[in-house]
């Protein structure tokens, strides 16, 4: 009797152990599968967009050199020409200009939160930054369209649809990205750095400028690059305020177009598979390549991070 109970207990144990190890294996397979799905997605996006993006060069024989260097975009003419330079220029222009505005503001905000007023500054600014992230990009575009564009039209020149309007909208959009990462970077600096500098008699500003900023520099640059990546890829908000003309802009107040805005506008109007449509996919490929380049820069910067 006793023996039998022990046996069945033993059997039960063995059985449950089998169940366990089966579950173990199943769990491992499940989560590994999810990791594989992410690899598949990334590879699929890259491959499909590359193949589709190269079609205009390989199938339609659009010259890649003309595509990248000509300023003449006129796909509907008798002698169609496909020069995407104005759009590439527009994209890069709004990206760099908005980084120029947002970087000092974002890093300044981060310094305020970590060095000047860590206790209450964080309490006020943190939710503000989170809410700024939450505002959808179309709303930014809509406000740009209803406030910024008329303002520039009245106080500047032209129609108000301009690189300037696009830049301002984008700089507000990337501000939270830069601030968040910069705050993390400054907050992660060991406090011995601060205390050492202050103990030597340096003022707070000297400590920030000579000790903390150089120490956090790679991370701060990462913040700016990620902000630029976001600005570069933003489509709808910019499209609503930039004016979308195909000429190279001569000044900040001139309308312009970016790669994303041209894709947004024309993808629906062009026939799938036509030459013009294929050149839009080539622009998408450029977007993909440049966002990869941004990642490489971030990786390089993070490999240089020492602290």
């Amino acid at each position, binding site marked *: 009797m006793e023996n039998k109970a022990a046996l069945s207990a033993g059997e039960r144990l063995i059985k449950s152990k089998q169940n366990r190890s089966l579950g173990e294996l199943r769990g*491992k397979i499940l989560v590994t*599968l999810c990791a594989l799905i992410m690899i598949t997605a990334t590879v699929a996006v890259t491959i499909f967009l590359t193949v589709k993006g190269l079609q205009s060069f390989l199938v339609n024989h659009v010259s890649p050199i003309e595509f990248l260097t000509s300023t003449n975009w006129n796909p509907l003419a008798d002698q169609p020409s496909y020069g995407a330079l104005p759009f590439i220029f527009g994209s890069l222009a709004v990206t760099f200009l908005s980084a120029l505005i947002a970087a000092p503001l974002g890093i300044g905000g981060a310094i305020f939160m970590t060095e000047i007023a860590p206790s209450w500054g964080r309490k006020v*600014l943190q939710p503000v930054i989170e809410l700024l992230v*939450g505002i959808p990009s*179309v709303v930014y575009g809509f406000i740009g369209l209803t406030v910024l564009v008329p303002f520039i039209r009245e106080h500047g020149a032209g129609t108000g649809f301009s690189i300037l309007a696009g830049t301002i909208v984008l700089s507000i959009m990337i501000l939270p990205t830069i601030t968040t990462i910069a705050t993390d970077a400054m907050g992660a600096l060991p406090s011995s750095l601060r205390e050492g500098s202050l103990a030597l008699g340096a003022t707070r500003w000297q400590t920030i400028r000579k000790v903390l900023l150089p120490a956090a520099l790679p991370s701060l640059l990462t913040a700016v690059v990620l902000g630029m990546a976001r600005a570069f890829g933003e*489509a709808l908000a910019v499209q609503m305020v930039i004016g979308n003309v195909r000429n190279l802009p001569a000044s900040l107040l001139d309308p312009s177009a970016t790669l*994303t805005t041209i894709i947004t506008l024309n993808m629906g109007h062009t026939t799938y598979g036509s030459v013009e449509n294929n050149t839009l996919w080539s622009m998408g490929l450029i*977007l993909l390549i440049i966002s990869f380049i941004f990642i490489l820069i971030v990786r390089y910067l993070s490999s240089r991070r020492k602290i």
Partner: protein
Amino acid sequence: MNSKVADRIATGVFVTIAFIIVAILAALFSFILFRGVPQISWEFLTTPSSSVRAGGGIRDQLFNSFYILFITMLITVPLGVCGGIYMAEYAKPGKVTNFIRSCIEMLASLPSIVVGMFGLLIFVNTTGWGYTIIGGALALTIFNIPVMVRVSEDAIRSVPAEMKEASLALGITHWHTIKTVLIPSAFPGILTGAILASGRVFGEAAALLFTAGLSTPRLDYLDLNPFSETSPLNIFRPAETLAVHIWAVNTNGIMPDIREIANGSSAVLVLAVLIFNLLARWLGSVVHKKITASK
């Protein structure tokens, strides 16, 4: 002293910057809410939109936004949590893990319009579905998964090591420990992250423009058969979301009351995102208190 003066000036500059950031947010919010909230009425929320006449509402767009969000989260959350478990518990440092990390990073920084183009290529053209809700949801999944993975990984990693070790020391297997110890402790973090990601998905437009389309068929809300053409639950129908609607109305709308519609829709969108944010914080802290018994 020069350095003292410089210190004062610098402090002043940083305070000004902080003030500017707060002022930007205050201006944006007051603008959206003051202009938009008066437009929101029961009628605005419950009448279908009109493409030519004034007085159209946002009923279908609102429903589409929530429905696409729901389907997206249905796919993203399990995938993202499993991915997070893999990265936190199973991934060994090495080339493969590095590669997966690069993939997550790349997915996270893909411009949403590129995700939209990929969706157009695969879910619209290659599969032949045309503009569909499921296509939009899958595109948003690509866009959302890296966020979900990172959130879950962080939440699982922040579970105290003693809890895991205690469980393993009792002879519980690894997967069972993950299921019964790690996931419950990490749940508040994952929940908060998922709700915040929902807010992001809710406001996303560029990726949906090419995948879920710019139109909504005439919907019959009493028809709950998901395979019927007019059913709102049909996932193979085109669907314009609220964010896409705002863009479309502003760029090529021809109804006379564009401003009112755009103001009202923007306010609804921002309020929804705001609610998602508050909900995430509140639920996160409530659940955290409930399951960790800490005060």
